C-alpha cells in the first residue's frame, strides 16, 4: 500500500512538472514579482515603513541640562525634526548600547550623572553618542541634531568666556556703534588671543562611539521574496487539492477506487504529492531568488544563513498551506466554486497577512494578520534573514503554522470524506 501511496504522490508531482502553466505560476510569477518589488523599493535602512532615526536617550542626569536633550529629542521635538528622529527614553545604558549593536536602534545618546552639575560649575563634560555606522542616513541626521543642541551650549559658553556675557552683548558692545575695519580687526585679534589661551574650550564634548555593530541595512527582498513565495505556494496547494475535485469530475478518481486501492491510500498519496510539490516550490524559490538578485546585481542576501531555521519555517508553512488548500476544496461543491473561493480567500489572506504591504502599522490589521499563515511565514523568514533570529526565536512561528496545518487538516478531512462518496 505504501508503494501505491508513493505512486499516487509521484503521479501528482509529475503532472505538475509537465504542466507549463502551473510551473509559470509556481516559479516565474513569484520570482518576477518579488524581484520587481525589491528593485522598485530598493533597500532601506532600518524599519521599512519608518524613515526616521530611532534614537534612545538614556538620561542619568537629574538636572535641567540633561532634561533639555530629553525634551528636544523625546518630549517636545520640533515638528520638522520629529519627522527625522524618533526619540525614545531608555533607562539602562547597557541595554541601549545592545539595541544599537543589534540594529534595533540607530543610536543611543547617553547623558552622564553629573552632567548638569558639571555644566553649572563650568566644568567640561561630555555626552556619549553611541551609534552604528551602518545606519548612514539615520546617524548623520542624529549627529547633526545632537550637534546642534550641544553647540548651542558651547557657543553660549564661549561667548561668556570671552566677553563675560552672551553673544548679544558681544554684538552690541563690539560690532554695534562703530564697526570700522580697524575696529573689527582689533576685536578679531582679541578673540583670537583668548581662544589660543585655551579659555574657550567647548563645555560639552560629544564622545562619538562608533560601535561597528550589525548593519541592519534591510534587503527588502527578504520581505517580498517570502511574501510572494508563500502566496504562490498557497495557490499551488489550492490548485493541488482542487485537482482532487477535478479527478472526481473526470472519473480518474473513481477509476482508482475501482482498483484494489483503499480511499485513504488515494488521499494520502495526493496529499503527500501536494505537500512535496509545495515544499519543492519553496525550496526552489529560496535558491532561485538570490541567484536572480546576483544576476541583476542586487543584494543577494535574502534568506539569511540560518538554514535549519529556514527549513523549519518552510516545512511548517507548506503544511499550513496544504491544509488550507484542502480546506477550501473540502468546503467547495464544484471545481469552479473551489477555484473562485481560493482566489478570493488566498488574496485576502495575503493582503491581511502582509504579503503586499507591511501591516504592523495598521492597528486592526496588525491583530488580524496573526490569523494568517502568511504573517507567520513571512515574519519567520524575515526575522531569520534580518534579525539573526535563532531557532528559539522562530519557534512560535513554527508552532503556530503547525497548529494551523493540523486544524485545517482536521476540518478538511472530515468534510472531504463526504466528497469522496460519489
Amino acid at each position: 500500500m505504501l508503494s501505491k501511496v508513493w505512486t499516487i504522490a509521484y503521479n501528482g508531482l509529475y503532472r505538475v512538472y509537465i504542466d507549463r502553466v502551473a510551473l509559470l505560476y509556481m516559479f516565474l510569477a513569484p520570482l518576477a514579482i518579488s524581484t520587481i518589488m525589491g528593485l522598485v523599493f530598493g533597500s532601506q535602512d532600518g524599519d521599512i515603513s519608518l524613515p526616521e532615526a530611532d534614537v534612545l536617550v538614556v538620561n542619568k542626569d537629574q538636572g535641567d541640562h540633561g532634561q533639555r536633550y530629553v525634551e528636544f529629542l523625546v518630549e517636545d521635538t520640533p515638528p520638522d525634526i520629529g519627522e527625522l528622529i524618533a526619540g525614545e527614553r531608555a533607562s539602562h545604558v547597557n541595554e541601549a548600547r545592545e539595541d544599537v549593536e543589534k540594529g534595533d536602534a540607530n543610536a543611543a545618546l547617553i547623558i552622564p550623572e553629573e552632567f548638569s552639575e558639571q555644566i553649572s560649575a563650568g566644568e567640561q563634560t561630555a555626552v556619549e553618542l553611541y551609534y552604528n555606522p551602518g545606519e548612514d542616513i539615520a546617524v548623520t541626521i542624529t549627529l547633526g541634531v545632537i550637534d546642534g543642541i550641544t553647540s548651542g551650549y558651547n557657543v553660549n559658553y564661549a561667548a561668556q568666556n570671552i566677553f563675560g556675557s552672551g553673544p548679544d552683548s558681544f554684538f552690541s558692545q563690539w560690532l554695534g556703534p562703530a564697526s570700522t575695519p580697524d575696529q573689527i580687526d582689533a576685536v578679531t585679534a582679541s578673540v583670537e588671543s583668548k581662544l589660543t589661551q585655551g579659555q574657550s574650550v567647548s563645555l560639552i564634548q560629544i564622545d562619538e562611539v562608533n560601535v561597528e555593530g550589525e548593519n541592519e541595512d534591510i534587503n527588502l527582498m527578504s520581505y517580498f521574496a517570502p511574501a510572494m513565495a508563500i502566496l504562490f505556494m498557497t495557490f499551488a496547494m489550492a490548485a493541488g487539492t482542487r485537482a482532487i475535485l477535478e479527478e472526481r469530475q473526470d472519473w480518474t478518481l473513481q477509476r482508482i477506487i475501482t482498483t484494489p486501492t483503499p480511499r485513504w491510500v488515494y488521499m494520502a498519496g495526493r496529499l503527500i504529492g501536494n505537500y512535496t510539490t509545495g515544499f519543492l516550490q519553496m525550496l526552489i524559490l529560496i535558491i532561485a531568488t538570490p541567484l536572480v538578485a546576483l544576476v541583476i546585481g542586487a543584494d543577494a542576501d535574502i534568506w539569511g544563513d540560518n538554514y535549519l531555521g529556514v527549513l523549519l519555517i518552510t516545512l511548517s508553512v507548506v503544511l499550513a498551506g496544504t491544509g488550507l488548500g484542502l480546506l477550501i476544496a473540502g468546503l467547495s461543491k464544484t471545481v469552479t466554486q473551489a477555484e473562485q473561493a481560493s482566489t478570493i480567500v488566498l488574496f485576502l489572506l495575503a493582503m491581511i497577512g502582509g504579503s503586499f504591504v507591511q501591516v504592523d502599522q495598521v492597528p486592526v490589521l496588525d491583530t488580524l494578520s496573526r490569523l494568517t499563515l502568511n504573517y507567520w511565514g513571512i515574519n519567520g523568514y524575515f526575522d531569520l534573514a534580518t534579525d539573526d533570529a535563532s531557532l528559539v526565536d522562530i519557534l512560535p512561528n513554527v508552532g503556530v503554522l503547525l497548529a494551523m496545518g493540523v486544524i485545517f487538516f482536521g476540518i478538511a478531512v472530515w468534510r472531504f470524506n463526504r466528497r469522496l462518496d460519489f
Partner: protein
Amino acid sequence: MTAFVQIQGLRKKYDNNGPFAVGPNEDGLNLEIKEGEIFSLLGPNGAGKTTTISMMSTLLTPTSGEVTIGGYSVTRDPLGAKKQIGVVPQEIALYPTLTARQNLHFFGKMYGLGGRELQSRTAEVLDFIGLKDRADDRVEEYSGGMKRRVNIGVGLMHRPRLIFLDEPTVGIDPQSRRSILDTVKLLNQEGMTVLYTTHYMEEAEELSHRIGIIDHGEIIALGTLEELTRKVGEQDSVLFDVDQVPDGVESQLSALEGVQQTIVQEAEIQVMCTDSNAILSQAIDILTRNGVTLHSVEVQEPDLEAVFLHLTGRALRD
C-alpha cells in the same frame, strides 16, 4: 456455466434527486452473470446502468442488497472483489496530459502490477488496443476513438476475470465502434466475462449471450435475444414515416382489429399488431383519409426495440 456474479436485492435510492432508485421494487435488483458470458444491460439514458455498475465496483454503497463477485462480497471484502474486475467507466477516465503508456503504467500499478510484469503487460495492452505507434503521445492529442481504446486498455491491465464496460462506444465514429465491438468479442473468446451496458440495441443484439433490459432502475426483462423477442410474441411492428400526424389518427389506428398498440413519435407512427398483412391496407386508408402524406412503410420483425416498446410504451432512444 456457473454464476460468477450474484446480485441479490440490490437497491440504491438517491434521496437528493427525487424518487429515482435502482431496484425500486421491494425485492430490489436480482441478477446472475455466468462465468464466460457477455451480459448486456440495455436501457435508455438515466435507466440506472451506471448506478448499478458503480455499486458493483464499490464506488457507491448500496442502500440495501448484496453483490458477490467470484465469491467476494463487494461490501464486506471490497479489495478481494475489486481484484476480480476491470472497470471501464463511461467517461474517459484518463489523465489527459499523460501518454497512453503512462496512463496504463499508472493504473497498472494501482491494480497491483509491478516490475517486469508491468512493463510487458503495458506493451501487450498497447499492442492489443492498436496504439503501439502512438503510445508516447499525450492522451489529449488522441481522437475520441483512440481515447476510448485506451480507456478500455486500462481496465485490461491486470487480466481481470470480469470486465465492466459502461457504454464504451458513446460518441465515436462507426469504424472505432466496430473495432471496439470486435475487441469485446475477442476478449470474451479468450475467456473473459463481460458486463456490457449500452443504449444501442444493435450492440446488445450483436454481442450478448444474455440481455437485461433496464428501465427506471428496474430490470424489466431478462434473457437471450430469442427469449426476449419471443415476449413480443407473434407480434409485428409496422412503421409509417409520414409528414404529419393529425388528431384522431392514433385512436383510429388503435381501433383496427389485431392492433395492440400505436405509438406516435413526431413524424413516425408505429403500430404493433398480430399480423401486419391484415391491417396494412386499412391503415393506409385511414392515413390518406386524414390527409396524411406517406413517405414510407416498413414492416419490422420483432427486435429489442420492439421489446422495449412493448414493455414500456416508449422508444429506447430519445
